[in-house]
């Protein structure tokens, strides 16, 4: 199945891409996807501890099962609003 991987802020700069396509076996969990994706992008791996991950605009757990066409977003710690 195909997934869209969205990258923001420092992760976007590290990967030098806003969006990447990714292919995974049906039934893959979010945790399994992350293992594979971070192995392919080792410079992002050190950020896993502070990384928030959203699937289709909602924060999701590593146990969540992914589906064809899912939008997976890797979110650095947020810093909106006032300074």
């Amino acid at each position, binding site marked *: 199945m195909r997934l869209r991987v*969205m990258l*923001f*802020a*420092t992760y*976007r700069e590290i990967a030098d891409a806003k969006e990447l396509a990714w292919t995974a076996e049906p039934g893959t969990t979010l945790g399994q996807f992350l293992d594979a994706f971070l192995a392919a992008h080792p410079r992002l791996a050190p950020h896993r501890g502070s990384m928030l991950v*959203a699937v289709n*605009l*909602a924060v999701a757990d590593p146990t969540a099962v992914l589906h064809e066409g899912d939008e997976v*977003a890797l*979110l*650095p710690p*947020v*810093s*909106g*609003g*006032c*300074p």
Partner: protein
Amino acid sequence: MIEMTRRRIDVDAVLDSVRRDEAGAVVLFLGTVRADADVAALDYEVYVPMAKKVLADLAERAKAKFGVLDLSIAHRIGRVPVGGDSVAVACAAAHRREAFEACAWVMDEVKRIVPIWKSVPPRRVRRSR
């Protein structure tokens, strides 16, 4: 009203969006870009569809939690110069206490859970000659 905008935040429109005849108090918070050392502007990067969803949910939770009448949030996307408004939160309530509390709580949450990232834009290198 939940708005993510590349243009100047229209503060009057944000205020008017929460005004109600049953309100005795309106509180507005503006986050403004502060002239810190070496800062002439800030860049705001936003995961727009998720930010809209999280902000809409936040506004509903604030209404339920504090019993306020209405609550609007507007946030800038892109470059905001020093002195510019990066975020506006307006809240109307029957009494002032809950309006202040809801507005302050929403700002804490905006900084905690909304997918927005700010950065200092890199300075252009000036070449001599």
